[in-house]
């Protein structure tokens, strides 16, 4: 990997523009100057099984029809849909592929009819964790995933993504204990090793089938931390460090051949964009339908697609929720695009307002500040391996958070202050320089009923 980052100037680190844009076969462009909605939707509370399948299909038909109609009415220039399957739809690949085909056909027809550029991101589940301990590289779940990857193109997908979970079986407990070495082992060793294995297969499947390998997300790691912090279960400053630590893991998808856009819930995508120049999708205030966050505005400052994360097909006063969500995203994007059309200075001004409205209020927002992202990214790329990069990311994040707290650049709650000290100590004493040393330290602590290290190519 190059020792320099792709975007080194703050003036070119902005929403809607990426040095390595992605263009689909049907002409949808990501990163060439405009931000547009990526809408995701899901079922209301209901069972998904053979008996309910006709209802499931009816829901997806209604959701895609509503979203396309409203997007056309609002003159959205481009529309991307993400179909993130429910676990049952990856466990039974034919189900997921059927819905994907349905959505793709509707999008293609809409583009032919109206000229609105459309694309479909297909995101099957990582179902390998249905085995406990997870079986990562063989078995029925892995075979089902391979089948889904291979048939994504035939089922109409333009992009293939996943929220992979390698290492999550250890990360959850490490998060609950605010165990920084445990998190680094889960993300920087297990997560990165699994990403390399998984994305190699995903990229190969995409190349065989004319699908663009898009990107991953550390949702199960860093977003879990963010939710726990939001519920006052772990310190926010710890969650902020986990976010930065997750960047090298998500980066592995790109080094294996992913082209972007990174998944919407990958807030660490801003680091991926800075380092590799690939476009990213993000979600913030208009994803409050799916989860709360302290980064509603800042998340849009650097996005290329703007997403709602997911919304259930339930009735609201104005209409069904997916349609409402599409409208909210459409208006968010309009504003960003108008500023960009006015002038580069106007776009940067809007970006800075988006940043300044969140960054001073929470450490998790502060580590997404474009200036902080560029400084940390420059350090991350000095690492030779994903593990080294993860360790550097942790060190750089703690350093930035310490400096930011000293300068009162963001608000650090009094009861969080001691956690910065504890993380500094953990980094110094318990997070070794090399992956080999980290494995030697952590492997004896791993409960084999929870995690089989051999599934990550580690001999035990």
């Amino acid at each position, binding site marked *: 990997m190059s020792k320099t980052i792709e975007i080194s100037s703050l003036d070119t680190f902005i929403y809607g523009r990426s040095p390595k844009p992605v263009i689909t076969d049907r002409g949808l462009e990501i990163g060439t100057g405009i931000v547009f909605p990526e809408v995701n939707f899901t079922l209301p509370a209901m069972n998904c099984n053979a008996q309910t399948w006709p209802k499931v299909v009816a829901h997806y038909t209604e959701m895609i029809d509503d979203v396309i109609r409203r997007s056309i009415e609002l003159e959205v220039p481009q529309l991307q849909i993400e179909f993130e399957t429910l676990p049952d739809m990856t466990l039974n690949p034919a189900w997921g592929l059927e819905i994907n085909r349905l959505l793709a056909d509707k999008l293609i027809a809409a583009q032919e009819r109206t000229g609105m550029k459309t694309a479909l991101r297909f995101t099957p589940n990582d179902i390998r964790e*249905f085995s406990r301990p997870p079986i990562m590289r063989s078995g029925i779940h892995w075979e089902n995933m391979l089948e889904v990857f291979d048939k994504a193109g035939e089922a109409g997908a333009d992009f293939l993504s996943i929220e992979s979970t390698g290492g999550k079986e250890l990360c959850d407990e490490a998060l609950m204990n605010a165990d920084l070495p445990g998190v680094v082992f889960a993300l920087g060793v297990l997560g990165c090793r699994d990403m390399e294995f998984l994305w190699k297969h995903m990229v190969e499947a995409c190349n065989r089938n004319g699908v663009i390998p898009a990107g991953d997300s550390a949702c199960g790691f860093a977003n879990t931390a963010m939710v726990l912090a939001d519920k006052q279960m772990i310190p926010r400053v710890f969650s902020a460090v986990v976010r930065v630590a997750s960047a090298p893991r998500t980066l592995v998808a790109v080094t294996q051949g992913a082209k972007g856009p990174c998944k919407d819930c990958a807030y660490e995508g801003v680091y991926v964009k800075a380092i590799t120049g690939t476009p990213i999708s993000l979600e913030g205030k208009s994803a409050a339908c799916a989860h709360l966050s302290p980064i509603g505005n800042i998340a849009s400052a650097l996005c290329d697609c703007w997403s709602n994360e997911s919304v259930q097909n339930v009735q609201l006063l104005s209409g069904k929720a997916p349609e409402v969500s599409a409208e909210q995203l459409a208006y968010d994007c309009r504003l960003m695009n108008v500023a960009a059309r006015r002038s580069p200075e106007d776009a940067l001004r809007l970006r800075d307002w988006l940043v300044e409205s969140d960054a001073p209020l929470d450490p998790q927002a502060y580590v997404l500040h474009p200036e902080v992202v560029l400084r940390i990214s420059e350090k991350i790329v000095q690492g030779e391996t994903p593990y080294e990069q993860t360790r550097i990311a942790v060190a750089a994040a703690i350093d930035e958070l310490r400096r930011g707290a000293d300068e009162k650049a963001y608000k650090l709650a009094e009861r969080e202050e001691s956690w910065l000290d504890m993380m500094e100590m953990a980094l110094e004493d318990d997070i070794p320089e090399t992956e080999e040393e980290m494995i030697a330290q952590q492997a004896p602590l791993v409960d084999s009923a929870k995690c089989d290290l051999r599934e990550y190519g580690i001999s035990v």
Partner: protein
Amino acid sequence: MARNEELFNAIIKGKRKDVATIVQAALDDGANVEEILMGSMIPAMREIGDRFSRNEVYVPEMLIAARAMQAGLDIVDPLLATAGHKALGKVAIGTVKGDLHDIGKNLVAMMVKGAGYEVMDLGVDCDVAKYDEAVENGAQVIMLSALLTTTMPYMKEVVDHFKAKGSDVKILIGGAPVTQEYADEIGADGYSSDANQAVGSVEKVLV
């Protein structure tokens, strides 16, 4: 029951070694084992749970306290068994079928155990048969957890199953998308929005 302040504070501060030492010393001095448990150890865990509810401590601090509590339990448990002491009740907990999320479930299990109940952790992706087996093994309360809106409806299947059987097992539910209204709608015996509240729900249904 008289509270041993030193033991109470050692648990709250998560001082595992101190807890073991204090418990052993108290026993050596002839203290009643049940009094140690009920008078100091369980109240300490309640206090840490209350502090968490008041946003005064984080989960890692609660877990440290729980591990300190365990150091004491390792000493008193065999003595309690010999004395014929029974846990306050037997509780089974599991994430429902199709759902693999277990952070919340694990936290609830830890808090309920810390409150003096025997806890059977059934794990994740639990079908009706797993809950059935737990009830056959003496569970008086089963706790169902779900994070996904598409797995939440399985809670109703579990409730319906036990109702159809005429079972008197109490069913408590929780998880991000779950609400009191949903608990009422499916006929569950209770709902809790956080781990500490879950302990209160168990106490309530076992009265």
